[in-house]
């Protein structure tokens, strides 16, 4: 028996065809919408136009696309034998704004997807306007981002050689104040305890110390068996070297090196989304993957007990908010303004003919841009987005990451909730 369901209020929509056998889901077909052709739009354009065009892939992770695009161009300079240095100031500002976008994303996902959908699934009627909280924190943190980037969404302020802004300490103090406000929100609303104390929690047995909305969600998930469902392949990968994330892959208890050259894209029959694998194997990307590769103590402890369950996956994303807030605090504290914002000065800027790859950790996982510049224009542009990893249909040997997590569910409601814990972005997938 096949049941079709249109999943809405993710980033865009997805159509899922659930195949049932003996009352359990045995397979799921994930279909996305319309292909928008960003890669083709870029062909023939000036190399730096990618900094304006690629953010338009996605309304919620546009900034990550900008950073991947600028890194791809800068990698091209390096491959052409003319590497460019970036000042620590520019590096820190780029990291700060990227982290702000991730915080924005995770907050919206928690309050606008997980909380309402969990309540629906469990039949809870809290009557709370969770979106109000999402909007408060996300608009506060994107305001901090906009101090440096000019605006969010769709900034193009990262340029080859650094950043276009030239902030003063007036800007830095305002950003810090907005960050403090965001931390206060995390402490009072999300975690119910001071950030420092929250970050001291390293063991699953101390999770009960967490209060606030996160404590509530953990409790609901715990008593409803969600620490024993939603298991996938338990293989994780991250490619982006940024913020506090390290590239690597995590299998069983071992973390090892990765090389983005072994990432393969394949067309999927009947889908506008291409599947991605690493050395022919499927991996999960995103906050859980980053925490496993980075050996984040509390996530390792949870994983030891509950593996890659729903509970672990949801917690990993919210936990990342705390890590990002603390990291951003450190970035601003150490930011000095007496270095150049951009090391490429002058007007006659010619981006060299070369192929360059830019990798970054976006909200949903590793994002890869590859630009090939020939005779001063873009000849080819490739974008591999995180959702392609998590939502592929899989291959002959095994099912895709999210599909595997949904298999075995008794209802489409439960499976749809599992699907949403991957923070699905149909918009990116059909770029």
């Amino acid at each position, binding site marked *: 028996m096949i049941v079709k369901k*249109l999943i*809405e*209020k993710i*980033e*865009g*929509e997805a159509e899922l065809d659930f195949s049932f056998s003996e009352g359990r889901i045995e397979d799921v077909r994930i279909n996305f*919408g*319309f292909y*928008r*052709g*960003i890669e083709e*739009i870029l062909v023939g*354009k*000036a190399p*730096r136009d990618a*900094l*304006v*065009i690629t953010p*338009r892939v*996605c*309304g*919620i992770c546009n900034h990550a696309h900008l950073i991947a695009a600028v890194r791809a161009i800068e990698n091209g300079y390096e491959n052409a034998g003319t590497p460019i240095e970036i000042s620590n100031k520019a590096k820190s500002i780029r990291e700060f704004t990227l982290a702000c976008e991730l915080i924005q994303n995770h907050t919206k996902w928690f309050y*606008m997807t997980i909380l*309402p959908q969990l309540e629906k699934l469990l039949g809870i009627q809290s009557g709370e*306007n969770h*979106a*109000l909280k*999402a*909007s408060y924190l*996300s*608009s506060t943190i*994107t*305001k901090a981002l*906009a*101090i440096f980037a*000019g*605006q*969010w*969404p*769709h*900034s*193009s*302020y990262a*340029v080859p*050689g650094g*950043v*276009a*802004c*030239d902030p*003063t300490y007036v800007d830095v103090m*305002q950003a810090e104040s907005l960050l403090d406000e965001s931390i206060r929100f995390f402490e009072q609303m999300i975690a119910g305890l001071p950030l420092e104390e929250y970050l001291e929690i390293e063991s699953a047995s101390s999770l009960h110390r967490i209060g606030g909305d996160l404590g509530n969600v953990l409790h609901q998930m715990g008593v409803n068996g969600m620490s024993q469902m939603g298991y996938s392949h338990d293989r994780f990968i991250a490619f982006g070297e940024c913020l506090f994330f390290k590239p690597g892959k995590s299998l069983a208890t071992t973390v090892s090196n990765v090389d983005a050259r072994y990432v393969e894209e394949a067309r999927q029959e009947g889908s506008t989304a291409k599947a991605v694998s690493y050395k022919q194997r499927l991996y999960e990307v995103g906050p859980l993957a980053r925490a496993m590769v980075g050996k984040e103590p509390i996530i390792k402890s949870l994983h030891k007990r509950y593996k890659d369950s729903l509970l672990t996956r949801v917690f990993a994303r919210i936990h990342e908010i705390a890590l990002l807030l603390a990291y951003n605090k450190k970035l601003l504290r150490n930011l000095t303004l*007496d270095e150049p*914002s*951009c090391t*490429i*000065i*002058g*007007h006659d*800027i010619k981006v060299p003919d070369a192929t360059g790859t830019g990798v970054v950790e976006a909200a949903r996982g590793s994002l890869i841009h590859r630009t090939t510049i020939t005779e001063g224009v873009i000849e080819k542009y490739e974008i591999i987005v995180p959702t392609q990893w998590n939502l592929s249909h899989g291959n002959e040997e095994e099912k895709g990451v999210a599909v595997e997590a949904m298999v075995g569910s008794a209802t489409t409601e439960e499976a749809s909730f599992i699907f949403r814990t991957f923070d699905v972005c149909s*918009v990116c997938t059909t770029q």
Partner: protein
Amino acid sequence: MEKRQSEKPRLLWLQSITCNGNSHSFLNHPDLFSILSHFELIYHPVLETKHTIEDLISGSLACDILILEGSFRERGFMKGGIEVASYIEQYAQKAKHIVTAGTCATFGGMFKQYDPKNISGFCFDGEEETKRYESYASKLISLPGCPIHPRWLSYVLLMLVKGKTIPIDKLHRPQELYNITVHTGCSRNEYFEWKIDTKGFGLKEGCLFYEQGCQGPYTGGSCNKILWNDISSKTIAGTPCFGCTEPAFPETALFSTKTHMGIPASMPLGVPRRAYLTVTGIAKTFRIKRFEERIIDYDR
């Protein structure tokens, strides 16, 4: 017929071919929920609503104010097996007001470039009127911008709910928002006045119009009057204006100014070339020391 819960205008937010950027931009509005409290929110792509997407695509929902996001094609863009174009038209006919939110819905925008023949805005294809224009012109408000500014949208929504008339231009853009240029209020205006270009990116000194591709002086929009995220703008942050509110967005080579014999090819809005050259000629005969110095020396 379903009984109405309130007499508030019924607001429906509908997406076509989009990146969701306008939805997310509007979520940045600090007064979001007070603004929405004036309406009965029938459907929204991200916010919780009473109705589902299945209800939406059935074309059966009520709608007084229709917000459209995303560019438009007649055929080949489906949701739940139904052509999006077909149910958009159903709601457009019902609606008392149609607001095209963003450059895609207004002119075709970014995604038009993939298939320029078949993809356009709802009532405009670039600057040209589409065949739909005549049917909907009387109730159409254009809000271009990639993305829309949240306060531009709230201004329009509140004007509509209060029954006030919004003065518009021939592309149906509110004059109060688009009859000034992005250049208005730019923090670099002194440098523009004295024709002093910036030495490169990453500097707060100098104007971006001469070399960096800034389209601010001939782009309609209040980006530097009503700031982005209530705090900044592209040009304040050293990024050129890319003309994202204009029908031709996005043009090419966005980080360099097109010039004829060293003079910007596009003039500030409405300024005759001769007038511009005269003023430039005079301004450039003076050398003003203050404009050649850094504003702040951190290393002193």
